[in-house]
């Protein structure tokens, strides 16, 4: 077990290195170079030269690469060209908002998605299954911003139940009210994913021999479903939900933009609009590192819950 944990953690290192290499290449895709892209074609040769020196773009590519990787690995993700703050400071400023949103969405997604998936699996090919499958298919098809805009129109503009803009507020009640729509939007998308995974995972488990044995022994249907089936179906559900983390981040970026909510989404949008390539590059590294860590953690949790995984390796 400990051997597996160490192996799995070591495996994350080449992944991190490869990710850094890819970001490095991506940033060099800019036509011309980043300095021209940031300042425009009409900037004077001197200004361009200064910026290149500042960004290290006047160095040979291998030197740039080594510097980039060592900087990133030592936790120096660069500095925003517009605000002057480091990327980590920028992220730390908005991270609480995004985390709050993501956690609320995960909560909604789990509370709605798992029961929906279980019902669909238990009532397979009957109307609850069809309703649940259609709902989750529709949920999967919504780009985060489309569902967000439709909700905004319905609840904030037409019904006027909730505020259009979600600003941070000291008053807990109005804070919660402004979190409601974005969290619901993101939560319903997560519900669709989780319901789908729960359904197929439950169907797999319900086909196993031990379920039949338990049923033959006279275990009550409710206990059979909740304890014997769902208990085991949860493992793949946790893994897949971990894998959807990237989707969750992408959708939360869109959700934040629609609801003009502070967070990573607005940060990225701002970096795009001001052509702040160092900030973009740093954000990309932070995001991908985050996803790699979550994936590693998911694998470890999986091994912890299901001993077969670590023995198989």
């Amino acid at each position: 077990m400990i051997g597996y944990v160490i192996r799995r953690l070591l495996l994350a290192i080449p992944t991190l290195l490869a990710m850094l290499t890819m970001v490095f290449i991506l940033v060099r895709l800019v036509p011309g170079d980043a300095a021209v892209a940031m300042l425009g074609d009409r900037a004077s040769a001197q200004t361009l030269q200064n910026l290149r020196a500042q960004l290290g773009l006047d160095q040979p590519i291998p030197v740039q690469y080594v510097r980039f990787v060592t900087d990133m690995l030592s936790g120096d993700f660069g500095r925003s060209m517009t605000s002057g703050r480091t990327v980590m400071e920028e992220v730390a400023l908005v991270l609480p908002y995004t985390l709050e949103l993501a956690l609320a969405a995960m909560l909604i997604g789990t509370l709605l998605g798992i029961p929906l998936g279980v019902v669909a699996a238990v009532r397979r090919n009957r109307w609850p299954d069809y309703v649940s499958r259609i709902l989750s298919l529709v949920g999967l098809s919504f780009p985060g911003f489309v569902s967000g805009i439709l909700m905004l129109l319905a609840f904030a503009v037409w019904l006027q139940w909730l505020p259009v803009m979600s600003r941070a507020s000291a008053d807990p009640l109005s804070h919660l009210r402004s979190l409601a729509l974005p969290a619901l939007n993101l939560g319903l998308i997560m519900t669709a994913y989780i319901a789908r995974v729960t359904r197929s995972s439950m169907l797999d488990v319900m086909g196993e021999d031990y379920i039949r044995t338990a049923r033959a022994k006279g275990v009550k249907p409710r206990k059979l479903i909740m304890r014997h089936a769902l208990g085991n179906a949860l493992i793949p559900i946790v893994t897949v939900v971990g894998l959807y983390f990237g989707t969750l981040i992408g959708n939360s970026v869109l959700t934040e933009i629609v609801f003009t909510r502070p967070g990573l989404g607005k940060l990225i949008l701002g970096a795009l609009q001001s052509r702040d390539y160092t900030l973009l590059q740093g954000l990309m590294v932070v995001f991908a590192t985050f996803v790699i860590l979550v994936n590693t953690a998911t694998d470890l949790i999986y091994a912890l819950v299901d001993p077969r995984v670590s023995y198989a390796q």
Partner: protein
Amino acid sequence: MTDFAISQSMPARQSSPVLRALRRNRFAWLGIGLLALIVLVAIFAPIIAPYDPLKQNILHRLSPPSADFWFGTDSYGRDVLSRLLYGARISLAIGFLSVLIAMVVGSALGILAGYIGGVFDQIVMGIVDVMLSFPTLLLGLMVAAMLGASFENLIIAIAITETAPFARVARAPTIAMKRRDFVEAGRSLGYTPLHIMRVHILPNILSDIVVVASLWMASAIRTEASLAFIGLGVLPPTATWGGMIREGFDNILSAWWLVVFPSLAILLAVLALNILGDALRDAIDPKTRSQG
């Protein structure tokens, strides 16, 4: 004689049971019907569209849906319906071409990795894992921002985000196929590895790849619309669904039709592809084939 032995041990072409299963699946027909409708609309947009999608008419700006303008007009007085119809062309073209590129490159990589194995396999799959660790939207956003948003660059950006899943899907069955008798037989007959991969392996894993392709085309259309909404779409005044929502978002309080109709168009296209992909997957997976 040898040919006979090989053809006997080859798995039967899977297309007929799949087609049969599809025919019985009502969901599949819904998906195919919706998709056909959108494709037809895209092809015949110049004939169906009541107005020129780029023609501005300040006198009619921001008029709500009416008999003259079924879906209303935008802040430049352009007809929303005509722009929607033309927008279908961009969404479908970018979705289709990016997935086509991702499919060809990704499956080629996956088959090669699975067939050759060893260090090559480890390197390719290592890269694939890294690609998968970037959230799709953010990777697309990054590439589009670096290359600059244009029709071609968006196709490249979205193709890059979707290559890795195809490599994954192609690799696993290739490894399974490699051990099958008919591949062994082909090898002992002296066929080149390329021939074996193309003639003996590819046709047998094609159905898996096609299922993934329809699901990823749904994702590609979603990504394109999202990028356009963020401001990284095909440049205006070209009509794109995501771009229309972006423009309409400023007037959301007064002119709901600017965002609602393009939203429904995106939802319809993505839903059609998802329904079709789901039905195809059910049809191919023997575990679920008997249930409609």
